[in-house]
C-alpha cells in the first residue's frame, strides 16, 4: 500500500493527514495540534513521530511527505504545495462536485474556482488587512467573553445585527469594544462581525464569477453563523450560489497536500494517476 503524509502548518494549528494513496485515496488519520506557544518545527517532528508510531510505520514507508501553508517550518519533507492547490484538492476529495472552494484560515481568506480534477482555474484572496480572518474573530471572542465554538450558534439567534467597520480590523475591534460598553446584545454583535467578514468573501466570489456549489475549508468553515451569513449575502446579490462547509474542513489543506504528494510521486515516475 502507498501512504502519503500532508502537513499543513497554519498560524494557530498544525494539521497532518495520513492518506492511503490510490486512484481513490482514503484518509487514514487526521491529527490537529494547536501550536500555542510551542516551537512549531519541534511540534511537527514530535507529531509526525507519534503518528508513525501509532500506525506502526517508519518515515521511509511514506511515499511522499508534502507540506502546505508555512512549509519552511517542516524539516523533513519531499515537497511543498501552495495552500490554494492543497485546499482545492482536499475539498474536492470529499465533494467531487465542487466548483469553488473558499479557504478561510486564521490570517487570509482565499477563493478558488476549480476545473475538473481539482485543477485551480482562478483564485483571489483578501489583502493584508486581518479583518476578514479567523484570528480577528478569535480576538473578538475575548472582548465578548465567549468561546469560539459559541460564535456560530449565537450569531443565528440575532434579529438585529450590529453594523461594523468592514475595512479595518483595528477599527472593527474598536467598534466591538464600544458596542459591549453600550450593552448591545452579544448575538447582534457576533452577527455584525459575521456580516463584515462574509461581505468581503462574497465580494471575492462575485469578482471571480464563480460557480456553485461552493465549499468552505479552514477553521472558520466550522462557524455555522458565518456560512449562513455568506449564503444570505450571496442571495442578496443574486449570485445563485450554494455555500456549505466542507467535510473535514480543518484538515482539507493537509489532506489535499497528501493526495497531491501521491499524484506527484507517480507523475515523476511517468505514471499517470487520477
Amino acid at each position, binding site marked *: 500500500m502507498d501512504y502519503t503524509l500532508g502537513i499543513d502548518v497554519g498560524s494557530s494549528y498544525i494539521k497532518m493527514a495520513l492518506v492511503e494513496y490510490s486512484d481513490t485515496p482514503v484518509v487514514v488519520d487526521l491529527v490537529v495540534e494547536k501550536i500555542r506557544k510551542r516551537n512549531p518545527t519541534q511540534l511537527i517532528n514530535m507529531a509526525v513521530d507519534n503518528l508513525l508510531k501509532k500506525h506502526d510505520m517508519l518515515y521511509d514507508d511514506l511515499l511522499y511527505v508534502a507540506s502546505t501553508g508555512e*512549509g519552511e517550518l517542516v524539516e523533513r519533507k519531499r515537497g*511543498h*504545495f*501552495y495552500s490554494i492547490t492543497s485546499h482545492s484538492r482536499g475539498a474536492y476529495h470529499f465533494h467531487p462536485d465542487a466548483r469553488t472552494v473558499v479557504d478561510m484560515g486564521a490570517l487570509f481568506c482565499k477563493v478558488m474556482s476549480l476545473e475538473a480534477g481539482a485543477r485551480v482555474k482562478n483564485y483571489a484572496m483578501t489583502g493584508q488587512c486581518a479583518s476578514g480572518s479567523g484570528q480577528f474573530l478569535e480576538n473578538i471572542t475575548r472582548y465578548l467573553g465567549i468561546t469560539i465554538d459559541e460564535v456560530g450558534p449565537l450569531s443565528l439567534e440575532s434579529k438585529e445585527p450590529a453594523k461594523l467597520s468592514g475595512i479595518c480590523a483595528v477599527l472593527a475591534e474598536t467598534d466591538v469594544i464600544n458596542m459591549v460598553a453600550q450593552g448591545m446584545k452579544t448575538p447582534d454583535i457576533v452577527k455584525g462581525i459575521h456580516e463584515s467578514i462574509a461581505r468581503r468573501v462574497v465580494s471575492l466570489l462575485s469578482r471571480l464569477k464563480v460557480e456553485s456549489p461552493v465549499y468552505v475549508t479552514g477553521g472558520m468553515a466550522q462557524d455555522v453563523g458565518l456560512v449562513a451569513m455568506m449564503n444570505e449575502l450571496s442571495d442578496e446579490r443574486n449570485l445563485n450560489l450554494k455555500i456549505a462547509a466542507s467535510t473535514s474542513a480543518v484538515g482539507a489543506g493537509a489532506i489535499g497536500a497528501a493526495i497531491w504528494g501521491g499524484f506527484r510521486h507517480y507523475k515523476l515516475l511517468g505514471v499517470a494517476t487520477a
Partner: protein
Amino acid sequence: MKDKAYASMIQTARDLFEDLSFEYASKWKSKDKSRRVIGFLPIYIPKEILHALGMLPVGIFGAGDRLPVIKGDAYFQSYICHLPRTVVELALNGNFTGFDGFIFPSICDVIRNLSGIFKLQLKDKFVRYLDFPQNFQKNIGGEFYRSELDRLIADLQGLNGKKMEPKKLNDAIKLYNKNRQLLKDLREIKRDRPQNISAVDYYLVLRAGNTMSVEDHNDYLEKLIELVDKIDVMPEDKIKVIATGSFCEQPPLGLIKTIENAGCYIVEDDFQLGHFWFPEDIPENSSDPLESLIDMYLHKSTFSSAVYEGDQPKGELLAEQVRDLKADGVIFCAPSFCDPALLDRPLMEKALTKHHIKHTSFQYHENLGQFHVIKEQAGTFADMIKLWE
C-alpha cells in the same frame, strides 16, 4: 548536514552585506597609504583596471530595507526606482567618507543622473560616468571604449600617483579569471545540487565578492566550495527556475527566500550579473591587456538589458538558457520603474511563450517587506508546473 564552518562562512558574507559603513574597505585601505577605494554601481565595470592601480572596487547596490530614506526622496520623482534613493541617502549620511571615487557604468538615465548628483554633492571625490559601447565593431565601439578606458585610467592614476603597467593588469586579469572560475564552480554546484546552498546564502557569497578584495574572495570561495561540495542532503521536489530582471536594484533577501520556499530552486539569476559578465577567461599574458579587456567586452559580454542585443535577440538567448539548464520556467522579477528590465520583459515573454516555456512576473522594490502576494504567485506557478505540465 550543513556544519558550523559553513554557517560561520555564510555569516561572514552576511555581515559584509549588512554593513553600510563599509568597514572592510576602510580596514583594507588603512594598510597602505597609496590604497584607494572606488565605489561602483551595477552592473559591470572592468575591476581589473582598479586592481592594477592598487584600488579596491566596492559594489554599491543600495541599502535595501536597512536604511530609511529621508533625504534621498527629495532628489527623485515618484516614478524613479528605489536604488538611487538609498544611494543618495548613504552619500549624504557620510557612509562613503572612506571612498575616494565612484564609477557609474552606463545602464540607464537614472544611474547617469545619479553620477551628476554625486558630482554636485561630493565635490572632493572622483566621480566618473563610464560609457560602454553599444556598437561592437572594433574600429567603432572598440575605439570608443579604448578612449573611455584611457581617460578613466589617466584620471584614476591621479588619485594615488601609480602608473598603469601591463604586467600588473595581466596579474589582475589572472586573479579575476580565478575568481570567475571559482564562482562558476559554485554556480555549478548550485545548479546540480541546489539543496546544498540556499539561494540566499549563494546570493550573499556573490555579494561578498563585490565588497572583499579579489584575493580574499578567492580564498573565501576555495574554502566555501570545499564545504558546500561535501554537504549531503536530499533535494526537495521543487521546480527549477531562472530569475531575471534584478541586475541593478537588488531584490530583498526575503524575496529570494520567498521564491525558494514557494517551491522553486533558482538555478540561474542575474542578481550579481557583473561576476558572470564573461563566460570565459580573459587572456592573461597579452602584451596589450587593455585590448584584451576591450575585445572581451565587445565579443564575449553576456546578454543583458543594459547592452544592445544586435542580431542576437535576448528572448531567444534566454530561451536557450532555459533549455541548456533544463529549467522548468522563468520568473521575471524586476524592480518597479526599472526601464531596462521592464522594457525588455514583453519581448522576452513573447519569446518564451513562442518556445512554450512557462513564465510569471512580478515587481519589487529593494525595501519591500511583505512577500505574501509574491509567495502566492511563485507558489501557484510552481504547483502548476509540478502537477499539470
